[in-house]
Each structure stands twice: as C-alpha cells, then as structure tokens.
C-alpha cells in the first residue's frame, strides 16, 4: 500500500490520540470528547467521519483480550518460495481467523497471525494453509510474556 499523508489539523491529531486510547463510556461520547477538546459534538462527529472515510479510523469498539475468552492465537512463521506468493495470498485470504500476513526480509519470509476458538482449530487452520500453499517449513509461535500491547502513537 502506498502511504498517503492526508491533511490533518491539530484537533484531528488530538482527537485520534484520545479515541485510540479510549472512547468515553457515556451516552454521548462525542459530546464528551468535544468538551474535552473545546469543540462541538457535530464537529467531532464530522471529523470522525472524515477520519473513517480516509481509512484512518477503522472501527470503534472493544479491543478484546482474546485469551481471557479461551481463544488461542499465535504468530506463524514459514518459508515461502517466491513463486508461491500469490498462492499464499489466496490461502491466507480464505480464513477469517488469519488477521494479518506479511512478507518479510528474513529466511523465514512469511509471517501471519491467526486467532481461533481454541488451540486445535488454530493448528488445523495453519495445517490447511501449509498444505494449500505447499509450505515445507512452518512454525507456530505462541506469545509468551507481554511487555507492551497497545498500539498507541503520538500523532
């Protein structure tokens, strides 16, 4: 994807910093944000809409601790032959449980995240991808101790 640098003003940036940390849990959250930021509810809603139209805001909702729901996730590393990239793209696209996939500059060049209802299902999905793409080497890498989780940027 080509990065674009949309024109955001200071208020847009401050709004983004706040909403990616928390949306106020109150009946009219955008009115509450407007008050914090010295703006109006209508203005905040318009800005949020624009940020969504620009593809910057993806979704307003719960950021879930999936392990607390008994679900099982992992990062998967594999060795992918260059001529199989399109096959890999199709395979990872097929499973909603695969949330992100990247090619990386490393001997293990295919990396994807998978999150499923339980460990058995997770491993079965990885096995099916490996079979479809013809991956010879695949490793499921469960997360150990976490030191930092939230994605938060000063914009």
């Amino acid at each position: 994807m080509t990065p674009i640098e949309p024109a955001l003003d200071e208020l847009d940036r401050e709004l983004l910093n706040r909403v990616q940390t928390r949306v106020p849990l109150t009946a009219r959250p955008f009115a509450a944000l407007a008050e914090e930021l010295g703006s109006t509810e209508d203005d905040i809603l318009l800005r949020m809409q624009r940020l969504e139209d620009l593809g910057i805001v993806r979704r307003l909702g719960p950021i879930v601790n999936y392990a607390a729901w008994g679900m099982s996730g992992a990062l998967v590393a594999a060795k992918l032959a260059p001529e199989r990239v399109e096959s890999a793209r199709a395979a990872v696209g097929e499973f909603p449980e695969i949330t992100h996939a990247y090619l990386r500059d490393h001997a293990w060049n295919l990396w994807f995240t998978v999150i499923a209802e339980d460990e058995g299902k997770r491993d079965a999905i990885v096995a099916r991808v490996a079979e479809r793409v013809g991956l010879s080497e695949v490793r499921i890498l469960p997360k150990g101790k976490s030191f930092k989780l939230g994605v938060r940027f000063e914009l």
Partner: protein
Amino acid sequence: MTSDREFIDAAAKGLPLAAEPFADLARQLGMTEAEVIARIERLIAEKKVRRFAASVRHQPMGYAFNVMLIARVVPERLDQVGQAAARIEAVSHCYQRPHPDGDPHCVYIMVHGREEETVTRVVEAVRAIPGIRALEVCRSLGELKKTSVSGVSSRFHDEDD
C-alpha cells in the same frame, strides 16, 4: 439476557458514528443504553476487554515502515530487555515468543515509523540494550492481508497489529 459472548460479538462489529452510538447497540441487543455501558465497564474491569477505543490504521497516517525485530537474549535478562524495548515510543508491541529456529529466549519488537530514519534510530536504540546476544531486523516486504472488520475475527484483530 444477552451473554457476554453475544454481547462482544455484536459490539466488535463496531459502533456507528452517531451522537448516541451505544443506544444503537442497545436496540440491537434488546438492552438499555445504560446496560450496554455497564456491561462494557464490567468486561474492562474483568480484563476481558482491554479498552473501548477506535482502531486506527497506520499506513494512511504515513507509518509506512513496519519492522519486526527479533532479539535473541540472555535468558536471565529477558524481562529487562522486554521492559527496556517497551519504553521506546515507536515500539507498538513487544513480547516474548520463540524463534522459528527453536530458541525460546527471544523478544519480538514491532516498530512503526513515519520515516525510515525513525526505524533506524529505534533499531540502534534496541541494539544498545544490554542482554541482547543477536538482533534480527525483519523489514516488511509487502502485506498479504490486513483484516477488514467482519465475522469472527473482528473481535480480536487489533491485538497483533
């Protein structure tokens, strides 16, 4: 009574950008707005939900340089390395995972930067952390998938961004 699971599945689809977004979810679930807000507060208190917030896509913001660092660490220094890396602003995620080659004593460090230079600076800062035996820098060569919001995975797709 809406179960927590039904509730989270509905909430994970995302709230509308409307003046009263929780009222919309409440109608959908046959709950009151106050019940919806109380449920979210409880799930946060129970640590089943980390926070209620907007998910932001970074590439349109110009965070084009996405690098994953794998630090092979001296086993007894793992916590110190993880904590030191987590303190760096441009590091978005940092956790222990095994190396695909089998070494369990590794810290994975995800870096997002607006400029190549930011990433280079972070890599140098990480390199200076004591306790790292070797550092592998894995640049992103392309994205094969970035989940859109749909179905079962919408619940957790933010976790490993």
